């Protein structure tokens, strides 16, 4: 089991900066994020977009801010669990918590800081009856291990970059690859689109345009996918796997089940220290709400600083907290 002082749920900018504020108070942090990379929305949605309201930076690209935050927190040696979703918080007899993830990782900590932004990014699922019954039995929303699809009949659905990229990649691996797309053009990366059309012309993939999946069936495992065209023509395809790729959308997810006061998908906090209604659990950044809340990165940074001052009493119950300026004392690494 991983042991730390503060377990931070969410490795976006606010979660990352919490490591710095905690580090100044000699508290160690472990971060968990459902995405496979750090940075939260900044890295996932708009890495190349400029941000203009970070104090001291007239303009900074989102990914650059994430990289800078990683540099800033390096002295405090944070540890990470990425690509796993926190499912459960279990309070121990001494008040501490064990945080459990979807993949069975366990983190023991004194304090939980939820910096979960808009929630977990989860794959967008098309509306197909019975789709969820086949999850893990032929239906997957991301390609984890391409080898799974070797010599299999694979159907991909979607028109974005990832649908194009995986179609191209799996064309060499799978027995048969079919790409189903609602439109008749692809506007994503033109190179990938051209390659997909070429592969279709060469007969290496099966490209079905202006069509949607109407139903799926199978006996315990996916076997058939029915496709309905814009021209109302229906066809049935044999399939071992179906991979709908329609991007990611944030969902609050299991956070809703932890006994926290929630208002419109945000966690209510006390602005004294951004604590929730449950002792030792704090919520900072876009995920919290309070009168006057502004969803700004800079507000999240402020919340992180105040939260750490308050969390200190749980990590060092016998010590008195004394506030120190970094300019006077520097940044003392662990």
């Amino acid at each position, binding site marked *: 089991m991983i042991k730390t002082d503060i377990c931070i749920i969410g490795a976006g900018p606010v979660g990352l900066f919490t490591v710095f504020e905690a580090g100044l108070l000699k508290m160690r942090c472990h971060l968990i994020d459902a995405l496979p990379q750090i940075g939260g*929305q900044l890295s996932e*949605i*708009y890495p190349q*977009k400029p941000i203009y309201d970070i104090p001291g930076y007239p303009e900074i690209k989102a990914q650059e801010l994430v990289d800078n935050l990683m540099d800033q927190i390096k002295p405090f040696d944070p540890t990470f669990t990425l690509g796993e979703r926190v499912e459960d918080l279990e309070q121990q007899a001494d008040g501490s918590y064990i945080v459990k993830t979807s993949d069975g990782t366990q983190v023991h900590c004194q304090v939980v800081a939820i910096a979960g932004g*808009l929630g977990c990014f989860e794959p*967008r*699922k*098309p*509306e197909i009856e019975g789709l969820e019954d086949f999850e893990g039995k032929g239906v997957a929303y991301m390609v984890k291990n391409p080898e799974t699809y070797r010599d299999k009949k694979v159907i991909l*659905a*979607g*028109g*974005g970059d990832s649908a194009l990229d995986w179609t191209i990649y799996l064309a060499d691996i799978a027995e048969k690859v079919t790409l189903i*797309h*609602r*439109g008749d053009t*692809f*506007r*994503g990366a033109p190179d990938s689109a051209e390659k997909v059309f070429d592969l279709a012309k060469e007969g290496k993939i099966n490209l079905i345009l202006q069509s*949607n999946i109407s139903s799926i069936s199978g006996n315990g495992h996916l076997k058939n996918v029915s496709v309905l065209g814009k021209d109302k023509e229906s066809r049935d395809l044999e399939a071992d796997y179906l991979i*709908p*790729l*329609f*991007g990611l*959308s*944030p969902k609050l997810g299991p956070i809703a089940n932890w006994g926290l006061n929630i208002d*419109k*998908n945000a966690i209510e906090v006390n602005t004294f220290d951004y604590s929730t209604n449950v002792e030792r659990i704090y919520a900072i950044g876009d995920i919290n709400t309070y009168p006057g809340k502004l969803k700004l990165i800079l507000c999240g940074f402020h919340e992180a600083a105040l939260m750490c001052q308050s969390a200190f009493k749980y990590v060092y119950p016998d010590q008195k907290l004394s506030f120190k300026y970094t300019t006077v004392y520097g940044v003392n690494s662990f």
Partner: protein
Amino acid sequence: MIINLEVEDRNGETQTVELPTEVNLNLMEALKASGYNILATCGGMALCATCHVQVLRGLDQLPAAQNEELDMLDTLPDAGFDSRLACQLKVNESLDGIKVKIRGDEH
């Protein structure tokens, strides 16, 4: 000026919404301000598609979608030829009299 548009929510209820054009809002922001539940993850950069609306009337009177909007719409499972991202539609006279149905993710 004040424009009027009809908005159908996810439950199929339709209301007329009055919007001023002077405030420099986009339709996503204006719908949120009017109390509609729209996630708007990316805040209006055409990067998340959560403000997806279907234009039930007046599609032709809208400015054409730019590539980044079309690209994002392509990633949606339920987008049609009449789909737009509300964040890419400026609240101005081009929206007067249209009817939209909210399709994107709730929060």
